[in-house]
């Protein structure tokens, strides 16, 4: 006979948190993700206090409109994700698949836009190490319309957004896997843990972006 903790969820209520393992596990894992971004964002805050002169006015270097669009995309992907979950809760296989597909697509396009953003920035001469010598931006800096050095600005910008992008990419991969399972009809009205768990991760990544977008691009 199987262990209660392994039998259908209601039986699990017998012990522990009244949620199933995968969901609990994902929340716990997200706890460690919070600390990871604490290291990055904390370092950013501290370094910025240390040398505020390195930060240019919002939009002076970074392309805010493009990232605003990206923010829009990510919020949309969050809502499609949650709609997918809502769908399977009603057992609506069709809408589940459609919404998951949408989420994958939008998530992928977020990464796409970010890659575009990076290439553009690097082209202008904004590198993780600061200005590219002799670049357009370096010129502006020389003319004094930009900070003399943006070394720390570049470092923290690329590290923070880069690792967020990495998380989104991971999310897209797992999401593709979940979608594939959805198309094979693996999720039911009764048991659709995979959908909810990947959803949690996805929304968390969205949440991190909301913070990053504000402190990196707008402040």
């Amino acid at each position, binding site marked *: *006979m*199987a*262990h*209660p*903790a*392994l039998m259908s969820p209601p039986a*699990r209520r*017998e*012990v*522990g*948190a*009244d*949620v*199933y*393992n*995968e*969901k*609990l*596990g*994902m929340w*716990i*894992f997200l*706890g*460690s*993700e919070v*600390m*990871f*971004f*604490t*290291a*990055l964002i*904390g*370092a950013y805050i*501290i*370094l910025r206090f*240390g*040398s505020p002169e*390195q930060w240019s006015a919002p939009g002076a270097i970074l392309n805010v409109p493009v990232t605003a669009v990206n923010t829009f995309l990510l919020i949309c992907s969050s809502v499609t994700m949650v709609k997918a979950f809502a769908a399977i809760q009603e057992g609506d296989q069709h809408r589940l698949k459609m919404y998951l597909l949408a989420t994958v697509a939008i998530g992928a396009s977020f990464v796409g836009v970010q890659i575009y953003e990076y290439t553009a920035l690097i082209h202008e001469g904004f*590198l*993780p*190490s*600061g200005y590219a010598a002799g670049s357009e931006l370096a010129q502006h800096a020389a003319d004094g319309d930009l900070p003399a*050095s943006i*070394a*720390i600005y*570049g*470092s*923290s910008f*690329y*590290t923070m957004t880069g*690792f967020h992008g990495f998380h989104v990419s991971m999310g897209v991969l*797992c999401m593709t*896997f*979940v979608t594939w*399972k959805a198309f094979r009809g693996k999720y039911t009205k009764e*048991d659709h*843990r*995979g959908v909810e*768990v*990947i959803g949690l991760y996805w929304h968390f990544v969205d949440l991190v972006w909301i913070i990053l977008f504000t402190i990196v691009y707008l402040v």
Partner: protein
Amino acid sequence: MATSAVSLEPAAHTEAHELSFLRKYIFSTDHKIIGVQFMLMSWVFLVFGGLMAMMIRWQLGFPDRALPGGQLLPETMAPGGILLPEFYNSLVTMHGTIMVFFAIMPLLVGVFGNFLIPLKIGAPDMAFPRLNMASFWIAVPAGILMMAGFFVEGGHASAGWTQYAPLSSDPQWTGVSTGQQIWLLSIAILGLASILGATNYITTVVNMRAPGMTWFRMPLSIWALFITAILVLLAIPILSGAAIMLFFDQTIGTHFFDWTDGGQPILWQHLFWYFGHPEVYILILPAMGVVSDIIANGSRKPVFGYHSMVFAIIAIAFLGWIVWGHHMFQSGMNPTLGMTFMISTLLIAVPSAIKTFNWMGTMWRGNIRFHVPMLHAVGFVAMFVIGGLSGVFMATTPVDIYIHDTYFIVAHIHYVLFGGSLFAIFAAVTYWYPKMFGRMMNPALGKIHFWLTFIFYNLTFFPMHNLGVYGHMRRIYDPSQYEFLAPLAPLNKFITINALLLLVVQLPFVWNFIMSWFKGEQATDNPWEANGLEWTVPSPPPHGNFAEVPTVYRGPYEYSSPLVEEDYLLQTRKLSSDFDPAAAGAQEG
């Protein structure tokens, strides 16, 4: 990714179908096998770390003499057998790194976290067995990568296990670049393994306790491992993040720790120690947990003040987050901050005192059996206290001005990590060996190993306090450079000789460990007459652990209970007086 298949697996396995050798022993998802795998890995690294320590000691004891067999080392490390200073620095760095990250941490968290948690809470396996396997098979490459660093151009990382920037962030100061990057990558990879493991442990403890196994019926070992898992989960990502920033400074030219362009060297220290101090409690809490179990068993008495023991663990874990600055008193950090860190650090003495005296209280009026695990457990208490008390000197900022970065610290490190963690590990290994391998270890050899280790351990490390008191700096390649250290040369030789002997007297243990595996006498289900759930199942337990779900009726430490004749009372044994939580479906979460 989490899918239904994952958590249903063990149930599937309990149906008796034969697994291939590969699935059974190499890529096993059985928490017991994974625990053993972690142990074998850690032993190897413990030996590596020990051998590095011997080279370090030789250099310090006999700075002018060639290392015996040192000729075998390549020119880049020890031309003519004389260690190079840069190689010495790599040795110290890697000795610390290997011992902390690849020996003690996997031994405590990887081995006993894996082996004990499901068995002791009455679960068939971890919540996510495949994740568990992944965690091990991520740790192994990390370890191999870490060792590979010795053989790359420029030698291995040499900025100390604390990797202070800018020494670590810019190759021009050490001449090490590849080795440094390997160190950082390996640590980041290992971090992932630890985080997966921690996620698994926490979920398992919260969600998979057998009926009747309420929070306050959990053995202290499980409490400690649970709290430790939380520390791992929250502390390791800080290190990973910091390591990645340092890695970028090394590779893609970021400036996080580069003072010439707005970066802050001190920031590294803050991040590292914000991880680092919780880390050292990761290395001691599980030790305290298993020792509590073993002392109760050896004394045939309930743990003295079980509840306060639990709260002490929680208090230590919590305080561990607000004391990191005590490593930075002399770093130029804001002195006012130093003051607050001094107070918070000193306060940790309080929960530690509770634990120490409660262990003594447990032995008080007991009927103490000196089986080998008990010897090591008592040794742990006796030695941890010394390490803890030396911590009080360093916590006191003015005294730390003088002893910071001296051998007083080195003595502290080894009293808490060897006298503490490693003795607890010896205790735990000898205690659960029968359950792991189904055979008893040889008690005579065990006793010899304990006493010899205990003696030479103290002869090696106790004098280091005196070196420190005299001002002997740590991490120096050749003490004879300083006049004021000249009088200490004999003491350094003395320490070195005992250190060599300390390594030698580990051989009985190694022999005992390996031979007992094949030749040891068959172990009964419950050789120590203990109360825990793991002792109700065969040694070694079958895949899936429990034939049917155990029901727990009482706490883990009902030794010498007046309710029964014999002096132990299994947690699963139902007395007429007990009510049946399974039937009542009662469970406080």
